């Protein structure tokens, strides 16, 4: 009996948390300097941007969808914004235009999925490619666009003193990315857990037809999720630009998007929707962070790192489908 109970409690989140803990302990014992405070902070920071993107992706996936345009939106919106600043467009105007563009893409994604009934995976795959192609050919003239000197983005590099003093905690030692990642995760947690719309996201993810019959405004809610995801992607881009003093749109062709999905799925947010929360995103991000850090310390070449990540994603997906079997009643064609 006890063993059955144990297996029933073995949710994917717990498996991953256990795994993360195991990897952590193994690294702590075998790798010199792994446990140093600076290294631990670096681990969290290295996954912050990834984590923020995963917060947006998490919200979309919980409501049974997926946003493959997130990384394109992240890079292209910020590149366009910086490009406008370079060519002398006033800051406020440039920001307003960029935000309008970001919201527009979110709306288009949402409308395609909610009203035109295009499967999310295709709609966002196409819109992501469109955003990249359009911006790269029409709006952004080179891969890397630097942040102009004295721009407010540079100020994001560090938590400002006034804020530090206002909250009476010495935050200056914490990298600003970590601070943002926790804030985004916390706000998303409050949204999902304590607001009506947050509950709608779960209900829609769990059983879309039932949610619709209940009278939940499923279509506007779907649109809302994609707009939120686009805005979070933009924020992640701004943060990237703050830390590197430039944005490089080559990131769209990198494995970042898959890493985001990796974090979400590995953390235990089922791809079939309705399950999981921000805790899963944090656990997933931590496991990836610890692994990447460990692999860098042992000097594993990039291609092997990708292989290891891919293997873990495969295992996570298999475990996901075993632990969260598809619900015959609610599964439908076009599900991802």
């Amino acid at each position, binding site marked *: 009996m006890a063993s059955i109970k144990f297996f029933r409690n073995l949710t994917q989140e717990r498996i991953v948390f256990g795994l993360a803990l195991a990897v952590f302990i193994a690294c702590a014992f075998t790798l010199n300097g792994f446990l140093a405070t600076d*290294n631990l902070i*670096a681990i969290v920071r290295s996954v912050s941007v990834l984590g923020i993107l995963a917060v947006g992706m998490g919200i979309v996936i919980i409501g049974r969808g997926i946003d493959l345009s997130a990384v394109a939106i992240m890079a292209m919106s910020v590149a366009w914004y910086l490009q406008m600043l370079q060519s002398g467009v006033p800051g406020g105007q440039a920001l307003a235009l960029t935000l309008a563009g970001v919201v527009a893409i979110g709306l288009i994604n949402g409308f395609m999925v909610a009203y035109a009934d295009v499967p999310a995976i295709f709609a966002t795959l196409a819109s992501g490619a469109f955003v990249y192609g359009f911006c*790269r050919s029409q709006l952004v003239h080179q*891969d890397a666009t630097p942040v102009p000197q004295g721009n407010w983005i540079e100020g994001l590099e560090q938590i400002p003193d006034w804020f530090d003093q206002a909250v009476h905690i010495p935050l200056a030692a914490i990298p600003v990315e970590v601070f943002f990642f926790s804030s985004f995760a916390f706000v998303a947690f409050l949204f999902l857990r304590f607001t009506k719309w947050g509950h709608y996201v779960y209900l829609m993810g769990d059983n879309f037809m039932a949610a619709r019959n209940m009278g939940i405004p499923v279509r506007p809610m779907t649109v809302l999720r994609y707009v939120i995801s686009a805005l979070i992607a933009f924020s992640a881009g701004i943060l990237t630009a703050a830390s590197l003093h430039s944005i*490089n749109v080559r990131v769209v062709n*990198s494995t970042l998007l898959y890493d985001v999905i990796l974090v979400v799925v590995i953390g235990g947010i089922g791809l079939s929707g309705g399950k999981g929360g921000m805790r899963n995103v944090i656990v997933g991000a931590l496991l990836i962070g610890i692994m990447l850090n460990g692999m*860098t310390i042992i000097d594993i070449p990039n*291609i092997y790192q990708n292989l290891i990540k891919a293997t873990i994603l495969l295992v996570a997906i298999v475990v996901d489908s075993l632990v969260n079997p598809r619900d015959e009643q609610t599964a439908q064609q076009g599900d991802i």
Partner: protein
Amino acid sequence: MKLKRMLAAIALVLLGALAVNTVATAADDVGTQDPGAKPYAEALKGKRVVLIPMAMGFDLAQGWAAYLKHEVENWGGVFETRDPNWDVNAHAQAITDVISGAQKPDVLVIHSPDLNSFSKLLKKAQKEGIYVVLIDNPMNFPADAFVGSNWYHLGELEAEAAVKACEGKSKQIGLVQGDAANASSIYQYNGIMNVLKQHPDFKVVAEPFSNWDPTTSRNVTTTMLQQNPDICAVIDFWDGDATGASAAIKDAGKTDQVALVTTGGGETVDCKALEDGTFYAVVMTELAGQSRDMNAIIKFLLQSGVKPGTSTTYIYTLEKATTKADLKPTSCWDLKSLQAGAF
């Protein structure tokens, strides 16, 4: 009868005058006209030159394109580019399209992503009578010419700069490599190691790959600095991702202790980074000279009568490591003014 004779006489006189005149002009020609101008113009007129770099979206490619366009169009040729945008498949596709298209180019200028990928395609191009000029990244393929950096020597220059920066410090060096397939990364590494062999007290403490991505470069450099707090120099294999390494060094508060050495296109961003201390040394590509070399070898091939695929010429660009101390107003080139037509 009389009239006939008179007409004949006049005709004879006219003819004679004409003949004398022609001979005189001909003699004149030999004396004052350049014998090269005509065959030069004939050999080059209307020749198509197609540049296919790894992507058009970065400083070097845009610089090459601006120079070559300017030169080729001025000697009467046609210049085109294709943009595979870092995608090897798209790159191969672009080459295939160009060599099997209706208007075949006469010269194909290729910036290869690795040592082998395009060998077959380029061989086919040569068979079709197209000269193949490789630029920047060498290949295991006998192209008609290679113009670009001697990456091995470039690595040596970087290592020498790093060794100099480490004087009186720990003698620990960290590398941030590009990838494991690109000639520029592999040869650079070998060059660095060759110099460090001559300095046995130096040690490479870590050599992660960045995959040419600044975020990865930042993360691996952060870890590297934490594992080896005494590092005195980091060599990042490209300025495009060295921004990440520099951010990591800054985060660690080690800007004064760790010298960042890299290589780049020599656009104004490189000079700015040298000036504000982000980079300690940059081995810069002298773009104008390199592009002129490309133009010269293209003009040579088109006039030489050499059959494509029968000869190989290497033209390495002169390079040196530039530090803040030897920065001059002319050290860098400016993409914007180049594209605006200022050469």
